[in-house]
C-alpha cells in the first residue's frame, strides 16, 4: 500500500484546548472495575469491610496479560459486586466509600532525584506494580508491551501525541503542562527497551504542544538518546498505532502482527506520564487526565480525575445542568467512543473523555442502499473494502464477508463516518468478526 487513507473530520478541539488541567474533587464512592484493561480481570485481594488507603493494591493481576488495580480514594470497601461498566454494560467491581481524608499508601511526595541506579528490571517491576496500562484507549498492560522478547530487537520508540479523535484535548494539555515529566518517562522506557531513537508524533493542530515538547528536549541532551518531535498533518485515525508507524517510519506492521515485529514500540503520552509517576513517585495509576467537552462550551474542562469516579460526579463538577437539552453522553471520542445510558458508570483507566451532545448532534437514522460510491474504501486506513464486508454481512453471508479481511479492521469508524447512505459499516464489520470467529 502506497499511502494510508485518512479522513478529515472537524476537530472541535477549540472547545477545551485552552482549559488548564483542574483537579477534580474526590468522589464519595469509587467503583473500581476488575476488568478495565485488555486481558484477564484482576483478582480482588480485599474483603468487604476492609479499610484501604489511596493507592492501596486492591486487586492483583491474574496471569501475564492483566494489570494490578489500586484504590483511588481512602476509605472502606463496601461491596464487591456487579456494577455498571461504561463499555460492556456491567461487570464486577470493588466499591469503596470515601473517608474524605485521601490518606496515601506508598506514594512519595517528591520525585526521586536520581533513578540512574535502577535496573531495567526494577523499572519494569515498578511499572507492573503500579498497574499502568495504555491510556490511549486500548488499556493494554504496559509492562507486557515493554518486556523484551530476545528475538525481537526494538529500534524505535514512538510516543503517540497525535490525539486524532475530535474534541479530546487531555493529551494536548498534558504535553503543555508536563513536558519535562513526559521526557523523563521517555528516558525510562528507552532504557528498558534499549532504544536510541525516539519520535514524538504530534498533529499540527497542537502547535503549542510541539513547541512545549521541543523545549523540554534539553533534558536528555548529551545522553546518546535521539529524541525528535515530529509535526504531523491533522488527520484521522493517525493516532492508531499502525497508522502512526506508517506515517512516521513508512513501515507497515504485518497483518496480524504487532509493532514489535518490525522493531517498534508505541506508547501514548499519557501512558508515558503514568510510567514517570510510577517510577519517580512510586505512584500507582489511580487517576488520569480526561477531557469533558461537547455541545456546551461552559462545561468543557480538562480534569485530573480519580479512576472509579462515576460519570455523574464528573459532570456535576463540570457544572452540567440536568435541565440542558442533552441528547447523548459519550465516553471516549466521537469516532470510537461508547454512548452511555447509565451515568453511575465509572471513569476507567482507558477513559480519555466524556462528551455531552445536544440535539444538534442527532444523527440521521434512515439507512439507504449502498450506491457503491467507494467513499468507505477511500477512507479505510487499513486498506480494506468496508462496503463489501457490510453488504455481505447484511445478507448474512458471513463467509463472503469474512473473505474481505475483517480482522485487519481497526474499528476506527471512518467508513461509517463517510458513508452517504448511512450504513453502519463498522458495526457490520464488528459483527462479521464475531460471526466468523464463532464458526
Amino acid at each position, binding site marked *: 500500500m502506497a499511502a494510508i487513507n485518512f479522513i478529515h473530520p472537524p476537530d472541535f478541539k477549540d472547545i477545551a484546548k485552552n482549559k488548564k488541567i483542574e483537579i477534580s474533587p474526590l468522589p464519595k464512592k469509587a467503583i473500581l472495575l476488575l476488568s478495565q484493561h485488555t486481558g484477564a480481570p484482576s483478582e480482588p485481594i480485599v474483603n468487604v469491610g476492609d479499610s484501604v488507603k489511596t493507592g492501596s493494591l486492591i486487586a492483583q493481576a491474574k496471569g501475564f496479560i492483566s494489570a494490578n488495580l489500586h484504590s483511588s480514594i481512602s476509605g472502606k470497601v463496601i461491596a464487591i459486586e456487579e456494577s455498571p461498566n461504561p463499555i460492556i454494560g456491567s461487570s464486577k467491581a470493588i466499591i469503596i466509600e470515601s473517608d474524605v481524608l485521601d490518606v496515601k499508601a506508598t506514594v512519595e511526595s517528591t520525585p526521586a532525584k536520581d533513578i540512574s541506579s535502577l535496573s531495567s528490571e526494577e523499572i519494569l517491576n515498578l511499572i507492573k506494580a503500579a498497574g499502568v496500562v495504555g491510556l490511549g484507549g486500548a488499556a493494554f498492560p504496559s509492562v507486557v508491551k515493554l518486556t523484551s522478547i530476545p528475538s525481537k530487537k526494538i529500534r524505535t520508540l514512538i510516543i503517540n501525541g497525535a490525539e486524532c479523535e475530535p474534541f479530546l484535548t487531555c493529551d494536548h494539555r498534558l504535553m503543555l503542562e508536563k513536558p519535562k515529566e513526559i521526557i523523563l518517562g521517555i528516558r525510562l522506557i528507552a532504557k528498558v527497551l534499549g532504544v536510541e531513537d525516539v519520535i514524538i508524533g504530534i498533529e499540527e493542530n497542537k502547535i503549542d504542544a510541539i513547541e512545549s515538547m521541543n523545549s523540554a528536549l534539553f533534558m536528555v541532551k548529551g545522553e546518546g538518546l535521539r529524541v525528535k518531535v515530529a509535526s504531523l498533518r491533522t488527520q484521522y485515525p493517525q493516532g492508531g498505532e499502525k497508522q502512526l508507524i506508517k506515517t512516521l517510519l513508512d513501515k507497515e506492521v*504485518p497483518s496480524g502482527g504487532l509493532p514489535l515485529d518490525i522493531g517498534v514500540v508505541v506508547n501514548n503520552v499519557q501512558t508515558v506520564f503514568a510510567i514517570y509517576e510510577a517510577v519517580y513517585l512510586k505512584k500507582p495509576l489511580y487517576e488520569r487526565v480526561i477531557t469533558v467537552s461537547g455541545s456546551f462550551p461552559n462545561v468543557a474542562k480538562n480534569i485530573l480525575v480519580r479512576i472509579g469516579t462515576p460519570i455523574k460526579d464528573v459532570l456535576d463538577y463540570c457544572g452540567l445542568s*440536568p435541565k440542558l437539552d442533552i441528547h447523548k453522553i459519550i465516553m471516549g471520542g466521537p469516532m470510537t467512543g461508547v454512548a452511555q445510558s447509565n451515568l453511575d458508570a465509572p471513569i476507567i483507566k482507558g477513559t480519555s473523555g466524556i462528551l455531552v451532545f445536544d440535539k444538534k448532534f442527532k444523527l440521521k437514522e434512515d439507512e439507504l442502499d449502498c450506491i457503491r460510491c467507494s467513499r468507505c474504501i477511500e477512507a479505510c486506513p487499513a486498506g*480494506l473494502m468496508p462496503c463489501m464486508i457490510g453488504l455481505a454481512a447484511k445478507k448474512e453471508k458471513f463467509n463472503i464477508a469474512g473473505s474481505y479481511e475483517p480482522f485487519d479492521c481497526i474499528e476506527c469508524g471512518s467508513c461509517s463516518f463517510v458513508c*452517504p447512505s448511512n450504513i453502519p459499516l463498522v458495526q457490520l464489520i464488528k459483527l462479521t468478526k464475531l460471526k466468523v470467529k464463532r464458526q
Partner: protein
Amino acid sequence: MNKLTVSPSPHIKSSQTTKKIMWTVVISLIPAGIAGVYIFGISSLNVIALSILSCIFTEALFLKFRNKNPKAVLDGSAILTGLLLAYNLPPHTPFWIPIVGGMVGIVLGKQIFGGLGQNIFNPALVGRAFLQISWPIYMTAWKNPRWWPDAISGATPLAKEASTHFSYMDLFLGNRPGSLGEICVIALLIGALFLLVTKIISLHIPLSYIGTVGIITWVFGKDGFFKGDFIFNILAGGIILGAFFMATDYVTSPLTKKGKIVFGIGCGILTAIIRLRGSYPEGVCYSILFMNAAVPIIDRFTKTKKYGLIKK
C-alpha cells in the same frame, strides 16, 4: 435529564448524503442542457421534460408496487436517469420516444434488479439502447443547430457519410448535429469540473476512457497509421458526456481506483473499435453497457491492497 440516546459509534458523520450526491450530478448537467436547448431550439426542452417525468412516474409506480417508501422517488436518482436519457436522444423526437425510453430504463434498467444501488447496467443507457434497437429511424433523425439553413440533417460528424467539415471549435462549442446533451463540450466540461471539485467523481474513469480512445484512434485512425485525428474523435461523439457522466455512475462502475482505470480503458477500447470497424458510427452507449456487465469481474481482480500485507 432527558432520556439519553444510545447508538453505536461514530457519533459524528460527514454531511454528504446519497441524495445530495444525486442532486449535485443533476446540477452539473444543467449547463449542457441549457446549451442543447439553446442550440436546437425550445422544442428540445420537451424531450428533457418528458424523459424526466416518465422516469419519475415509473419509479414512483414501482416503489408503490414494491411497498417501498414513496419518498425515495425524490432521492434524485430517477430525475438523473431521465436527464441522462434525454441527453442521449436526438433533440427532436416523437413525444413517446423519451416516455418509452424512461419507462424501460427505470423498469428494466433499475427496478427489476431491486432499485437504487442494485442495478448492473446504467439505467439511462438501457433505455437508450432499447430505443436505438427498436426505432433506429427516429433515433438517428438528427436536427441541425437552429441557425443552420436546413433544419433536418442526415448525419452527425461521426457518420461515415458525413460531408460537412467540422472545425474543432465547432465541435467544442456544439455547432453541429448530434444528441441533445452531448454536443456542447465546453458546457459538459464545466459540469465535469464541478463534479471533480465537489469530489463526486474522480478522474480515473474519464481520463483512462478518453485517453484510450485518443490513443487508439490516433494509431489506427482512418488517415493511416499514427495519423488518426484523435482530437476529432474525442470531441465529435458522446465520449465527453459518456466518460464524465455515465461511465462514472457509482452503481455500475468498479469500486477501486485500479478497477476504475481498467473499466475506463475497457470502455475506450470498445468505443474505438466500434467507431473504427463497427457498423455504428458511435459506440459510447454500447461500450459502457458492455463494461457495466464486466464490473463484478473487474471488482474481483482489483481489490485493494490492505495494510500490512507483507511476509511475516
